[in-house]
Structures are given as structure tokens and as C-alpha cells.
């Protein structure tokens, strides 16, 4: 299988109360085409930092990131913007991920217009995407604070799909939603994965969700990947002490 994303020795440190704190400590993994990879771990274990480094929203201190075989961690300007044809992200807080002064439709169209699509074409495609994520076309004319979290997250998924990326990073995409809406979003993601053969990197702390969606799962603890395997393997026969604690805390 073709490898979409390959990460080697990714490292990032922060200063926390003037003390050096390693958020991500040289992790390596890859995502294959059409695969859904889960990344689980407690709060502050470096999951979101990893997501931000992969999408180049945050600079990595060490390590290399290959997207479709191309090294991307040193790209700048126009070339950096080019990688966003292939990688997209859905954020944890749906309402905050849309500009409060822009309509949802405009938010979804932004990437298409940046790719030189005309407004009319972009609008047609935007309405298709809205349909794909099961949103009424009327929502395109609404502002983020006029819709619910679930509807907003659907719009965010539509926005991520707009450029037909090969990889979508979902950073706690369902955590801010209530349980029933969460289930709907998960169903939507499953459907999209089936239909479009999407590769996904699903970052979350919900093991049930990982079991439901992912083909493979990585367990992260204090900046390191401590365990890797299929969700069933990891959940039923955890090898590491931390994984056991994590599973026990859910059950």
C-alpha cells in the first residue's frame, strides 16, 4: 500500500514556567492510503502538537515529515501553501474554526477560490459538499454563531474535503460535541471514508471511537509512542502499563 504520510523522529519542546518541557519526543509513524490511523493518549501527551507539526501550523524542532514522498518540514511561502492540497485538518472547536465575520459558505469556498476557481464554480462545488456532509444548503448563508456545534463541524468537514486532500487530520474533532451528535459525525466520517477512500489521522482520547473507526492505533504517553497495533489488539491485550491504565479508566 502507498504511504501518504511518513513521520520520522519528530520532536518539539516548549518552555513551561521557564522549564524546558518536551511535548513530542522523537516520534515516528506512517499513514497508508485509505487507512484510518488513531492517535490516543491523555491530555497534554503531545497529540495536538503532533497534529500541528504535521500540518505545519507549528515548526518541528527535529525530524522529517514526508507527505506523498515529499519532504515538507522546511517549505515556506507559496510552496508551503501547496501542501494544503494534500493535507487538511478538522479542529476541535468547530465554531472557533470558522471566522465569526464570514458566512459558513464563504469559509468552505475560501480554499477553492485560493486555487483559482471562479466564485460561481466554487459555489456549485460548495453546495455539493454541503450535501455530501448532509447539511441543508441554507446553512451556507449563516454565520458560525447561528448554527449548532454539530452543524458547524459538518461544515468544517466539508471545508476540509473541498480540495480533495489525500489526508485529513481530525484533531479531537468530536470532543466538543455531545454524544448523539458525536455518533452522527462518526457515521458521516465512516461514510466518507468508504466512499472516497480517505486517509485519516484521528486524534482523540476516546478509545471507543478509535475502535469504531480506526484500522490501526498508536498510544501516546508523555511525548512518546508507547504502543502500536490494531484497536482490538491494543484494547484487549495491552502490553504497556500506561495503555492498561488508559483502558481501565474508560471501562
Amino acid at each position, binding site marked *: 500500500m502507498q504511504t501518504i504520510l511518513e513521520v520520522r523522529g519528530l520532536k518539539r519542546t516548549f518552555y513551561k514556567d521557564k522549564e524546558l518541557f518536551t511535548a513530542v519526543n522523537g516520534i515516528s509513524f506512517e499513514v497508508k492510503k485509505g487507512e484510518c490511523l488513531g492517535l490516543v493518549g491523555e491530555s497534554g501527551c503531545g497529540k495536538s502538537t503532533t497534529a500541528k507539526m504535521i*500540518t505545519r*501550523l507549528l515548526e518541528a524542532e527535529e525530524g522529517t515529515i514526508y507527505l506523498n514522498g515529499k519532504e515538507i518540514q522546511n517549505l515556506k511561502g507559496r510552496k508551503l*501553501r*501547496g501542501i*494544503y*492540497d494534500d493535507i*487538511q*485538518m478538522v*479542529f*476541535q*472547536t468547530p465554531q*472557533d*474554526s*470558522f*471566522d*465569526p*465575520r*464570514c458566512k459558513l459558505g464563504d*469559509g468552505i469556498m*475560501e*480554499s477553492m477560490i*485560493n*486555487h483559482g476557481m471562479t466564485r460561481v464554480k466554487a459555489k456549485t462545488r460548495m453546495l455539493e459538499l454541503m450535501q455530501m456532509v448532509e447539511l441543508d444548503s441554507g446553512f451556507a448563508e449563516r*454565520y458560525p*454563531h*447561528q448554527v449548532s456545534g454539530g452543524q458547524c463541524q459538518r461544515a*468544517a468537514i466539508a*471545508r*476540509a474535503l473541498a*480540495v480533495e486532500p489525500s489526508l485529513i487530520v481530525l484533531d479531537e474533532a468530536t470532543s466538543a460535541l455531545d454524544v448523539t451528535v458525536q455518533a452522527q459525525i462518526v457515521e458521516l466520517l465512516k461514510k466518507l471514508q468508504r466512499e472516497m477512500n480517505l486517509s485519516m489521522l484521528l486524534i482523540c482520547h476516546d478509545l471507543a471511537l478509535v475502535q469504531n473507526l480506526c484500522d490501526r492505533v498508536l498510544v501516546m504517553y508523555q511525548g512518546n509512542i508507547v504502543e502500536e497495533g490494531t484497536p482490538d489488539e491494543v484494547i484487549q491485550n495491552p502490553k504497556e502499563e500506561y495503555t492498561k491504565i488508559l483502558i481501565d479508566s474508560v471501562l
Partner: protein
Amino acid sequence: MTEKTITIREQKVHKDYTKVKLIILLILLGLLLLAAAFASKVSPFDPYEQDLGSALQEPGDAHIFGTDRYGRDMLSRVIMGSQTTIFSALLLVCIITVVGTVVGIFCGYYGGKLDAVLMRISDIFLAFPGMVFAIAVAGVLSGGLSNAVVALACISWPKFARLARSQVMTVKDAPYIAAAKLAGSGTVKIMIKHILPNIAGAIIVTAVLDIGTMIMELAGLSFLGLGATPPTAEWGSMMSNGRSMLQTCPWVVLAPGFAIFITVVLFNLLGDTVRDVLDPRNSASH
């Protein structure tokens, strides 16, 4: 339940009241600006025509605000002066808002050395008492209304730069900016399309509130002889010329004084009302 209904109704009443206030103020200021724009047509006499025979006449039927020591009609001069004063102040506020906001957005967004250098420069400007510094700059540049505008622009832009910078720092890490980056938008597009609209409210309010202050400061510089030069009709210099006659012919000072007072109050009320309208707590429904 009843309690909630009342609060919502009260909020609505308050909102309507604010809107009515805004409309009234805008109409009043619109009239003022129209009078200023067409000053030469509106004024009953030529503001520069001297008639020593009718010098220092008390306010009466012919000259509603009286005449000054050269026999010029005070009402006409006040109307003519509104053109000079208000439009210079508006121009000044436009300049400092644009310059300050641009500097502030770049500093806030990029941070680092550029930010450090520009903010230290603005610190230097902020370190001196504003008016004293303006007098010094206007003095060095020698008088004249345009130099007074330059002097006040020099001392006032850092305020807007600081404001814009702090506002940018609060929004630049928001997920929607990250989302705009992921959509492939360039930095300039992000600044114009996503940052500016989200920080504009605070800047507009400050700019409108500053119009009154700028009118006062411009009139102040002219009063000191560093702004408009005679015979130009300008409120500050008119007051300055008449101050020796304050006890004998108070109307010479009071007419431009009241004009300044009313204009400044109107612009400040407008600023307050605009703030109420743009207040995020009131903007639950667009």
C-alpha cells in the same frame, strides 16, 4: 420565565434606544458636516470681509453672533471655521488610524524583531506628554495647519498601533486563522480578510472617540499660534485673537468656544453610541 421575558424586552428596548440615539447623532453630525462642506454658501456674510465701521458689535439682528474687531461677522467665521477644524481633524484621525492599524497588524502578526523595533519607537512617542510633544514638533516644523496635523499625527499613531497589535495578538492564534492558512490563503489575505474585520470594532470606536480629542488638540495648537494662521477662520485661532477682549466683548471668544464645545460633545457622544452598538455583548443577533 417571566423574569427572562422582561430582561429580553429590556435588552430590546435598550438596543432600540441606542439605535435611535445613533440615528439622531448621525443626523446632527451630518448637518454639521454639510454646513462645514458648503460653508461659503451657508454663511450669511463673507467671513473675511472687514468692515471697521461695524467692529465689535454685540450679537443682534444683523449679526447673530456679533462681529469681531475688524467688523467680520462672527457667525460666518464660525461656520467657515468648522470647515477648517472639522475636516483637518477628520483627516488627522484617518491618517493615524490607518498608519497605526497597519503598523499594529504587522507587529502583532509577525512579532519578533520588527515588532520589538516598532514598539520601542512607539514607546518613545508615548513617553512624552502628548500635547507638549506636539507643541515641540509643530514648533520645529513652524506653524501652519498642515504642520499641526503632522505634529499631532506623529504623537497619536502609537495609540492605534498598540491597540491594533494587542487585538491582533488575541485573534492570531484562533483556530479560524489556522483554518485560513490551511485553505492556502497568503499572509496578506489573512490580515485583510480575517484579522482586520475581527479587530475593526475596537479600532472604529477608538477612532470616533478620538475625533473630539483631535478637534480640541488642533484648536489648542491653533490657539497657541502653532496651527492655522490669521486671517484663516479657525476656531482655536479665533479664540486666541479674541482673548484680550474676553471681559469687554465676550462673544468674540464665546462663539468659537461654543462651536468647539458642541462639536466635541457630539463626536464623543457618537463614539460612545458606536461603542454601545458594536459591543459584542449586544451583537448576539446580526
